[in-house]
């Protein structure tokens, strides 16, 4: 009995404070939400990302990822020769089958599928970079 009464008294005592606090906080939240959603949301909430939008890979990033991939490829004769302009056969000493493997690795890296004809035309880091940059669905 005593405990229940004490609890009830506490609850009554505590209630006005809570409601006051809520009343104090709520207008601010409402105002900020309204402001954010109606005026310039992208500036005020920078953490929102639209994952369905194209990723927009930069040329440097694509080139860097292709070069990293080549560094991990054990058939490359001289890893110091890997550059943005390196030719697979002339500079890196890869034969046509190795080139096929590199292109397959690039397909996996950027999660795209390159048709046979276009894959056969890629012979250098530069060509690969250009091709990936032209693909809207490369990641």
């Amino acid at each position, binding site marked *: 009995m005593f405990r229940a009464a004490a609890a009830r008294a506490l609850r009554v005592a505590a209630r006005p404070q809570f409601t006051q606090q809520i009343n104090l906080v709520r207008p601010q939240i409402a105002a900020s939400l309204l402001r954010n959603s109606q005026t310039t949301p992208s500036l005020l909430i920078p953490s929102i990302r639209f994952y369905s939008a194209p990723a927009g890979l930069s040329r440097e990033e694509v080139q860097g990822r292709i070069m990293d991939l080549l560094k991990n490829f054990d058939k490359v004769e001289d890893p110091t020769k890997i550059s943005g302009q390196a030719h697979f056969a002339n500079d890196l000493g890869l034969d046509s*089958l190795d080139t096929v*493997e590199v292109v397959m690795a690039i397909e996996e890296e950027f999660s795209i599928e390159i048709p*046979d004809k276009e894959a056969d035309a890629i012979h250098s880091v530069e060509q690969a970079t250009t091709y990936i940059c032209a693909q809207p669905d490369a990641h």
Partner: protein
Amino acid sequence: MSTPLRYQVIHVYKELLEMGKSYPLGFDYFRPRLHKAFMSQAHLQDEEKIKEGIKRAEYVKKEIEALYYLKKYRKDLF
């Protein structure tokens, strides 16, 4: 090498490479051997010979498939 045949060869090479990723002795065992097998035939000029080679590659593909199916019964070997 005429172009359509070239694409066929590259295609079957890619397929075999993809299959080799789960080869029992490891991809690092499989890849150089596959590479060597294809490179040893790189000199072929006669279309009929190339077609024969592609047929052989298709046959090997089936063999590897069969190997994967039977692998579970041959634990002692791998």
